[in-house]
């Protein structure tokens, strides 16, 4: 039953990504100032939102773990941080790819880029910490605490383009979006695909951990025999 749900979910993710790609290249109009290179926006923005979401999930499940002390909550926090970090790496790659033709530099030390980079380093630290603590309970407690500490960077990074003057564009101001309607629609579809994709990865990552546990249990049983 569960496998069936995952299959359907995987199919939906694949379909929505194909639809997003079609919309990016065939439906959304070419931007006047930047030209074709602006297409990377539909990838860069959704990909940039996912880490915020993922690290928020890590924070929430870290707190839940500290209260409930059940391994499954730590697993979700870990899985979400891992996926968030991979996708955040994509942000730090697509950003410079877009910045080079538009700003003329791969990298500029301005608030949004700097805070995103620091956020990336914090969650690299989070994963390194996990690798460095062999005992399971202790690892879960330590990483839950560091998951809380590291999350402080997330609102700072998110608000950086609202608090400070910067060259990084701000697309969503309060309720208004400064874009043509077809562009907004394309962006939203792309965002939807990435959120779905994130959810798929998260559920599979947690499932993988569970399977690993099952294997350990079976191994123990075999050794007893």
């Amino acid at each position, binding site marked *: 039953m569960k496998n069936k749900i995952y299959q359907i979910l995987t199919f939906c993710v694949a379909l929505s990504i194909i639809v997003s790609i079609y919309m990016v290249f065939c439906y959304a109009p070419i931007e006047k100032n930047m030209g074709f290179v602006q297409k990377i926006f539909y990838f860069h923005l959704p990909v940039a939102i996912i880490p915020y979401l993922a690290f928020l999930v890590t924070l929430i499940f870290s707190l839940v773990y*500290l209260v409930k002390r059940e391994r499954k909550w730590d697993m979700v926090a870990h899985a979400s941080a891992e996926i968030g970090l991979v996708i955040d790496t994509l942000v730090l790659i697509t950003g410079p790819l877009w910045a080079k033709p538009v700003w003329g530099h791969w990298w500029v030390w301005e608030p949004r880029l700097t805070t995103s980079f620091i956020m990336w*380093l*914090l969650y690299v*630290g989070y994963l390194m*910490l996990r690798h*460095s603590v*062999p005992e399971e309970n*202790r690892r879960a407690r*330590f990483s839950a605490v560091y998951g809380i*500490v590291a999350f402080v960077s997330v609102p700072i990074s998110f608000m950086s383009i609202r608090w400070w003057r910067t060259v990084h564009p701000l697309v969503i101001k309060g309720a208004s979006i400064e874009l043509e309607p077809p562009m907004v629609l394309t962006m939203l579809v792309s965002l939807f695909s990435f959120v779905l994709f994130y959810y798929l990865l998260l559920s599979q990552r947690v499932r993988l951990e569970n399977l690993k546990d099952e294997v350990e249990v079976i191994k123990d049983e075999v050794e007893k025999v």
Partner: protein
Amino acid sequence: MRFFKSIMVLVQKDLALELRTKEMFNSMIIFVLLTLVIFNFAFGEVIETSDEFLGGILWVSFLFAAVLGLNRVFVHEKDEACLDGLMLVPMERSFIYFGKAIATFLFLSVVEIVALPIFSILFGVNLLLNPFLLLLVLLLSNIGIAAVGTLLSAISINTKARDLMLPILFFPVIVPILVGAVNSTRLILSASEFVADIYIWLRTMAIYDIIFLLIGFLTFEFIIEE
């Protein structure tokens, strides 16, 4: 009342331990001086012609020395199993956090106050332009470093990588303090029209201190339990 009494006892214990060995103080102060010498070579004549770099040089030296000291905060407690003794004392676990953080804060402050005059002589800086603001910057930064550092030091001492883990966990978290301290020190030392600008940085550091003291207070017991 009991809160302050318990914490004072814990701080006194750490101070007594440090006064006997002076291992932390000696290595931190020498490390600051070494870093200043290295910066002198790294930047060369640029430092002599411009005072834009002074805040950065000073705070990077202090921060590196702080990591050196922070690595030692829980070494005795861990290696000689003193933490088990502390945890048997009938008091809140968070008292241990505040005791350690206050001791760390004092060590940092002493090192910095000894190092500042030397820095002033080596780089020809007048520290007396606005000594009270400078002390306020030291106070706010040291609270931040001690609040975050004590928490992360308790984590890193229990990892396999130990000393290697602390800088990786600590430096990205401490960035806001570094930015605030560097900018306000630069404004103070260059004696420009700064009064309005500096308060933004001081306020940022104060907010940071409050947030991380709170996080440390609430989460420390999860780290040392077992």
